[in-house]
């Protein structure tokens, strides 16, 4: 039953190669979707182009449905997949800082990689900044240790939070995504006219 331990099957290097292939597909899809271009990413925040929202929420919905179905069919052991633990406050604070970094810098980490890989200089500067920022965090985290561990809720999922069945959350997320697509499209038309 999935998931599998590829390092045990093919050895350490063989296991790593699986990740190399997954990363390759990820980078290929990001670049093919136009996410190596900071202008397309930033346009999301001005309601001009909604590619970020469309790609991201479509992906979340599709992955969520497939995980849900494969678990229900007994093909995938949900308890064996990695769900990030919730540290609510540093997650929210880090998220806001990243939102600010996104609109100033024009990329997020993954998209800056494909940008730099296609020789975009702004992507390379972003990546250099990212490395500096990550080192800066490692050097200063000792001073904010308490905050960094605040709001700890362990592995805490939306069905647990809302007290409903997983299937109900799946339906809710699909509805949310559709509502967001419709709302943002309406906003885009209102702000920039129907011609665009």
């Amino acid at each position: 039953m999935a998931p599998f331990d590829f390092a045990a099957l093919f050895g350490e290097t063989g296991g790593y190669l699986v990740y190399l292939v997954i990363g390759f597909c990820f980078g290929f899809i990001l670049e093919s979707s136009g996410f190596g271009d900071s202008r397309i990413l930033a346009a999301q925040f001005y309601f001009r182009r909604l590619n970020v929202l469309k790609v991201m929420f479509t992906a979340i919905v599709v992955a969520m449905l497939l995980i849900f179905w494969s678990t229900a069919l007994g093909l995938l052991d949900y308890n064996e997949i990695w769900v990030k633990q919730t540290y609510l406050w540093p997650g929210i604070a880090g998220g806001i800082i990243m939102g600010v970094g996104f609109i100033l810098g024009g990329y997020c980490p993954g998209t800056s990689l494909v940008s730099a890989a296609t020789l975009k200089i702004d992507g390379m500067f972003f990546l250099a900044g990212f490395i500096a920022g990550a080192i800066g965090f490692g050097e200063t985290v000792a001073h904010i240790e308490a905050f960094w561990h605040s709001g700890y809720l362990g592995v805490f999922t939306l069905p647990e939070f809302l007290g409903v069945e997983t299937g109900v959350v799946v339906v809710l997320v699909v509805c949310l995504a559709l509502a967001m697509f419709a709302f943002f499209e309406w906003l885009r038309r209102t702000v920039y006219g129907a011609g665009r």
Partner: protein
Amino acid sequence: MKTVSGEQRYWNPYIGGVLLGILLFLSFFLVGHGLGASGGVHRVAVAIEDLVIPEHVDKTPYIAQMAGGDRDPLSHWLVWEVAGILLGGFVSGLLRGRVRLQTYHGPQITPRARWAYALVGGTLMGYGARLARGCTSGQALSGGAVMSVGSWAFMFAVFAGGYGLAWFVRRLWQEA
């Protein structure tokens, strides 16, 4: 390619989204992890630090767990995934004639100004991604698909930060 931009040849976002969703599912299904980008880049950052100031790395607990003593911060699946992202992005760009030394910037600012903002924005991202324990890929996308409460809160925080500041810095991206 002489085209001003290869935009017209970018994939339809819903097709890109479906393919990304299938890949994200396959990643969870096959290896049990979602997709990640910032963690691997972070390990590269720590490796650079370890090359320059190894004694300091050994004494700083947060990074010593990755690079202290004989530990190699680069022998980790996240680093291989980042190598794959670089390679995949490069090949995709190569096939479409988009691998070209250039700077993407808004019409009102110079490339030089764009570099400065990219550096500042990248630095904030690097700090924020460590604080939040993940980025748009690892937290929002992957955590979002497995319904982690923290990931959903994170996702809305990113959009709040971005949309909150966007109007004030519109000169960076908007036409005159």
